[in-house]
């Protein structure tokens, strides 16, 4: 396969470009950055080992998501904790972003209020620049569903962010 990434150094270039966005995506499922990085590490190695084309970004994100969900299923206590964490928006977690000002902090906090289904679409779209088709492939939903979740996310975010402002 000509476009398959096979060279040893290629992954470093790819990782430098996608790494932060992948970790951000993984953190939508777990609250610890260490867990998120473990997930990305496993996903990246698995993806590279199978020599998938890096053009297939949807598959890479699907791999991250699958490993994250497996992790949650394996550890029921962790799953319960994560569910509580998702519901409890006041919980303090490690920030996902580097902030320039308080307004950005508010925006990030509003982002945390979104349901996971909307947040994962938003993260893939905004910070990883996936198309709705790629998002749909990663989440195994239609691209129309992906697009509508994105719109719902923005609408909720706007409402919450404005409310905070």
């Amino acid at each position: 396969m000509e476009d398959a990434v096979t060279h040893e150094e290629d992954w470093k270039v790819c990782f430098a470009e996608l790494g932060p966005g992948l970790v951000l995506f993984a953190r939508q499922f777990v609250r610890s950055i260490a867990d998120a990085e473990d997930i990305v590490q496993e996903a990246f190695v698995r993806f590279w080992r199978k020599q998938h084309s890096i053009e297939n970004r949807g598959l890479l994100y699907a791999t991250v998501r699958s490993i994250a969900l497996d992790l949650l299923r394996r550890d029921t206590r962790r799953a319960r904790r994560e569910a509580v964490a998702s519901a409890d928006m006041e919980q303090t977690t490690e920030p996902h972003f580097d902030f320039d000002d308080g307004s950005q902090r508010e925006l990030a906090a509003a982002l945390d209020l979104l349901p996971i289904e909307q947040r994962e679409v938003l993260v893939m779209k905004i910070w990883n620049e996936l198309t709705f088709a790629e998002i749909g492939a990663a989440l195994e939903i239609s691209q129309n569903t992906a697009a509508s979740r994105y719109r719902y996310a923005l609408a909720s975010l706007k409402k919450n962010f404005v409310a905070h402002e």
Partner: protein
Amino acid sequence: MNDFSELEADLKKLRPRPTSPDLAARIEIGLAEVAGRGTATAGVLPKRRSFRPNWIALGLGLAAAATFLLLARMNVDRPSTKAAGLALISPAPVTPAARVDDSFVPSALTRVVYDTRDEGLHFTDGADQPMRRLRTHKRETVQWKNPQTGASLRVSYPTEEVTLVPISGQ
């Protein structure tokens, strides 16, 4: 135009935190381990499984060879024992010429393999193919004999031998 363009722009200004410095190193190690398991050099895991019968055969072959050597050496030893017995019964006449040649010469070597351990695949320095490392424990017995007097000297010592066997995918 959509109603959210300003919000999208604000979101894009948020920069995800950089990954930990060691994450790339961990991935590198993970990929190296995968390669070490065979993708780049010795084939993927199922291929490795196909080598196993070869090593069983090799192990059996080694055992057979060791047994053969042992038996062969025992056969070599036997006459010399008899000779020693004869020498005791009827020692060779001591002559001045015999005194000159009064020296021990190696007469037998016995090598008994009592343990062979397969230590798996290893990469040697600079090698691009893994090699199987076999560690063999033996006991060697060397015997010297004085042909003139029939006297013999026997030294026995343990040895450990490490053999690197190239593997083949065929």
